[in-house]
Structures are given as structure tokens and as C-alpha cells.
């Protein structure tokens, strides 16, 4: 698989349930970021976790990072219909200070 692969590719859950999305990567990283994209819109930054951090919270979002497994997860608790969007992880590498490498995204649908 390529750098920054999310799974599942698509996730459909009921409003109020928790949604978990995973991301795996291949190379050493400096940081990992999660972004959200509503259909036809730009990417909105959600949360950044540094390579020396294991967990981070922001509101209903919880991100974990396991550098030994080269993986991260994004948990959205108590989902809302407005959370319907595509979610992408992006890694900032140790060899590159500028470019982010992106996964293919998880399309999340929250059913009311």
C-alpha cells in the first residue's frame, strides 16, 4: 500500500454513534495530520499530532499515533449529520519539511 492509506474507504453509521477511521503510512514521519473535506470544497485541518505524541484530543475528536506500527486512528464521538464528509490523513516526513503525503481518504456518511 502507499504512504497514507486510510481504512475503511467508506463508513456509514447512525447519528450518535462513534466513527473510527484508520491511517497507515510507510516512512518515518515528523507529524501526522487529519483533514476533512466536504464535497467539492477545500480541505479543513482538524488535528495535528507530532511523532513524539501518542494521543491528542480536540472536542469530539481523538487521534492516536503508533509510530511502531506506523498507524494512526481518528475517532469522532457522538457523530452528527454535519460530520458527513471525507477524512484524510497526511504525513509530514523527516526528509521533507514542506510536502504532505496524503491518503485516499475515508468517506464518512452519518445517517440521521
Amino acid at each position, binding site marked *: 500500500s502507499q504512504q497514507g492509506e486510510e481504512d475503511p474507504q467508506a463508513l456509514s453509521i447512525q447519528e450518535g454513534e462513534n466513527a473510527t477511521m484508520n491511517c497507515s503510512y510507510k516512512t518515518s514521519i515528523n*507529524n501526522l495530520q487529519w483533514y476533512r473535506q466536504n464535497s467539492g470544497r*477545500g*480541505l479543513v*485541518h482538524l488535528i*495535528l499530532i507530532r511523532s513524539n505524541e501518542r494521543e491528542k484530543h480536540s472536542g469530539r475528536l481523538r487521534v492516536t499515533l503508533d509510530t511502531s506500527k506506523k498507524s494512526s486512528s481518528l475517532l469522532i464521538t457522538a457523530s452528527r449529520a454535519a460530520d458527513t464528509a471525507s477524512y484524510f490523513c497526511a504525513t509530514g516526513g523527516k526528509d521533507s519539511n*514542506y510536502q*504532505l503525503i496524503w491518503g*485516499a481518504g475515508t468517506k464518512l456518511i452519518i445517517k440521521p
Partner: protein
Amino acid sequence: EPEVTQTPSHQVTQMGQEVILRCVPISNHLYFYWYRQILGQKVEFLVSFYNNEISEKSEIFDDQFSVERPDGSNFTLKIRSTKLEDSAMYFCASASLQNYSPLHFGNGTRLTVT
């Protein structure tokens, strides 16, 4: 809240023509980027720009592409001799710091090459 703005939102051009995509980054940001997203595919890094020069560019960013910061506010991407496969969403982004700094994206320009 300050935002990155991109114009136009949609550009249709004929194969072989040149297009200029425009971006106004957030005013106190120092790092500027162009990314593209072909429909249904991953977001791809094109180029980063700092201190009036290209910091890094991907293999995609060949001689067909160029960037410029013509004044203190605009950041442009020029695509010469467009090809059908250049059709994509082009996103501009800016950041205040190099590392550990989230990117702020514009809403993108949808480029359609016919």
C-alpha cells in the same frame, strides 16, 4: 477568521492553452503551497514556496508549471500548454510555520481541460 481565497472557482480551457490559477494566502503566513486532486484520487503535492523561491517540488511539477508571487498578496500557479490530464481540483494552501503547522486551504479551482 482569515482564509485562503482562490479564483476562479472553475476554469474551463482548451487543450494547449495556458491558464493562471490565483490564490490569496492568509496575510501573515510565510509558506505557500499548491496541491491538486484529480477526481476520485488522492491529494498530490505540487510545490512549496518560501521567501520568494520554490522550496520543494514534486515530480508532477515539471517545466509545464510555474509559480509566482507577483506582489505581497497573490500567489499564482501557471500551467502552460494544458493537457487533458491536467483536469483536476487545484488547491492553494498557506502556513505560518514550516513544521508542526497546519495548512490552511482555499476552496480550490476546478480546472477542466477540453
